[in-house]
């Protein structure tokens, strides 16, 4: 979801910004709580969240739907007094340190044990919970069963098998793998680290300052130069078009693509986590969730917290509706996910299993913009330019270390 939202915001930034000012909520009388959402792509979500807000009896709530570059708009509004009381986002350590977010541990209360712990961890900073996960999204590898059978290739369980499969599946105008128009550097950087048992950040230390990281990123370079990657597709990795149009045998995309792929290919596809490279690593799927948060500058923090508790803790029926009636998400509450019939078969059931067993935070709270830029630049230079991996990653690790020192001392 995060990825798709960003993609949309990039593609149509200017066109959509013009529409940013439109407040689709009811007329504010100064008494209502302001709640912000980004614009979900699936039809019906906006009506649903407005319906939830209307059903809340204690305080009137104005829902604002924000098309366009939601992240920037939200970040800017949190600097001023005019921001929302309640909003959805993923917590960043910088926002917590700047005192922009209200801790919500008392709001979550006993329900804490019902949330999947890997998801809740992505909303926890310095031991406190700042967001209540609303809907889980994840990325995984889609593969075309019939093309695998024809080429006599088995679903890869290691990175080397993945590269080999990608090579062997490249024939008759079909490429092996599509992992983004940049050749996979941006979306596979994290999974590559996890494939050798490393990470972005671990216990407040740089998680990839290790010679193994160079080996892992080197594999992405090997993939890039194998001639089996699709590059420069019309739609980027977040849309399954290259896969459904038969341009590739495998594509890295997300859970949200399952309905579209099912519609186009029936059951001629399967899903996999990103495989491991060494025995120190494990297969992985990047996972993220938007959470409901409360603005520390709000003048009505208690009312806002009460509303969030009601909507995302008490009304489990709404969480089920929000996750499963419109798009395709996994409910972060395990009790709700367990009884969702939509998630018990096929690719969706596999996805639920991956989230349980192989989840890695795609956007951890202490993986800041500075670190992300340094790491992505390094990976991009290795994968696309063939720069020496060890040297590039050491440079990025140094930057990350400086940033972590600033954050944690």
């Amino acid at each position: 979801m995060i990825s798709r939202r960003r993609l949309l915001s990039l593609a149509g930034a200017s066109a959509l910004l013009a529409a940013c000012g439109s407040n689709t909520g009811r007329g504010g009388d100064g008494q209502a709580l302001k709640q912000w959402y980004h614009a979900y792509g699936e039809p019906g979500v906006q009506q649903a969240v407005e319906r939830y807000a209307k059903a809340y009896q204690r305080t009137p709530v104005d829902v604002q739907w924000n098309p366009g570059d939601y992240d920037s708009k939200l970040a800017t509004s949190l600097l001023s007094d005019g921001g929302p009381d309640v909003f959805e986002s993923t917590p960043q350590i910088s926002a917590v340190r700047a005192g922009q977010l209200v801790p919500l541990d008392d709001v979550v209360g006993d329900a804490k044990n019902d949330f999947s712990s890997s998801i809740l961890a992505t909303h926890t900073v310095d031991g406190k919970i700042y967001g209540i996960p609303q809907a889980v999204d994840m990325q995984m590898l889609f593969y075309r069963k019939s093309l695998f059978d024809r080429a006599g290739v088995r679903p890869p369980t290691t990175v080397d098998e993945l590269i080999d499969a990608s090579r062997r599946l490249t024939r008759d105008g079909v490429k092996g793998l599509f992992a983004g128009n940049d050749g996979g550097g941006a979306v596979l950087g994290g999974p590559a680290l996890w494939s050798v048992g490393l990470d972005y950040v671990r216990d407040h230390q740089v998680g990839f300052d290790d010679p193994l990281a160079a080996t892992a990123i080197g594999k992405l370079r090997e993939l890039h130069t194998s001639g089996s990657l699709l590059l420069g597709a019309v739609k980027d990795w977040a849309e399954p078009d290259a896969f459904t149009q038969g341009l590739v045998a495998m594509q890295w995309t997300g859970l949200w693509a399952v309905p579209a792929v099912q519609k186009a290919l029936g059951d001629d596809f399967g899903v996999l986590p990103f495989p491991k490279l060494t025995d120190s690593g494990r297969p992985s799927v990047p996972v993220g969730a938007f959470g409901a948060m409360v603005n520390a500058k709000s003048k009505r923090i208690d009312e806002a917290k009460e509303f969030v508790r009601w909507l995302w803790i008490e009304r489990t029926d709404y969480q089920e509706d929000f996750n499963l009636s419109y798009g395709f998400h996994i409910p972060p509450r395990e009790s709700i996910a367990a009884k969702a019939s939509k998630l018990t078969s096929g690719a969706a059931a596999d996805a639920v299993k991956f989230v349980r067993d192989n989840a890695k935070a795609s956007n951890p709270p202490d993986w800041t913009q500075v670190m992300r830029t340094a790491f992505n630049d390094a990976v991009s230079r290795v994968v696309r330019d063939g720069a020496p991996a060890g040297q590039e990653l050491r440079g990025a690790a140094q930057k990350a270390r400086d940033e972590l020192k600033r954050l944690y001392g």
Partner: protein
Amino acid sequence: MRNGRAFWLFVGPFAVGLLVFVYVPIGWSLLLSFFDARNTVTPTEFVGLRNYVDMLTDGPFLSSLGTFSVFAAFIVPLTFVLALALALLVNQIGFMQSFFRSVFFLPTACSYVVASLVWKLSIFNGVRFGLANTVLGWFGAEPVAWTVSTSPPWYWLVLVTLRLWLQLGFYMILFIAGLQRIPQHLYEAAWIDGARPGWQTLRYITMPQLRTTSVAVLLLLLIAAYQAFDEFYNVLGTDRGYPPFARPPLIYLYYTALGSGGQDFGHGSAGAVILTLLIAGVTLVQGKVITR
């Protein structure tokens, strides 16, 4: 007195707008550049010149400044020469002159975002049915991933052709306006003195007479080159950020100051001030050299 009131009536709203939306933000940004301003625009921690030192020792920012100095050195003369050539051609023809003028000027009216998407998604997409790849296919060549390949860096071809298409018409119009102000009798006098039409009159009559226009065009081109953002952001940017090559300084600053998890207004502002000083410096030097 009446004149004074009319003056303020007409100028006042613009002056107020300029003050509120341009000068105050510029001043504020200058202020922020001396503070540790993370996730706040009302910072309290004064850090002196530290943000400037950081930016000037920061690899990505310096390398983007370097890249765009090279870019400017390349795109400015190229656009200048092509726009002038186009202006000379269009200015010479007597037949359908305004038609050609309009046709060449039309791309200027096109949105950078729209043009970027056309270039990226339809002309220079990397799959075999993209326009450029279809043409390559006629000659039996393999499809090229135009915006992805870094060796050779084909993305420059995409970005430069896009920029030329969007900008040429505008500068052509400036040159045509300049050309039409050159008195005809100068050329006649030159012919009588034995100058041959063509290179000689261009060198000794047209170019000196176009000096003011040329200076203006060069200035605008230079500023536009350093302020590149739209087409780069839309062609090379992805949902995962921007690749480390062909990254304009403004895009780097945008991610620093406004990126998610970033919001570092201190460093962002310091970078903006450095960029402003650089543009001002280069412009002054250029003005000095040309008008000497």
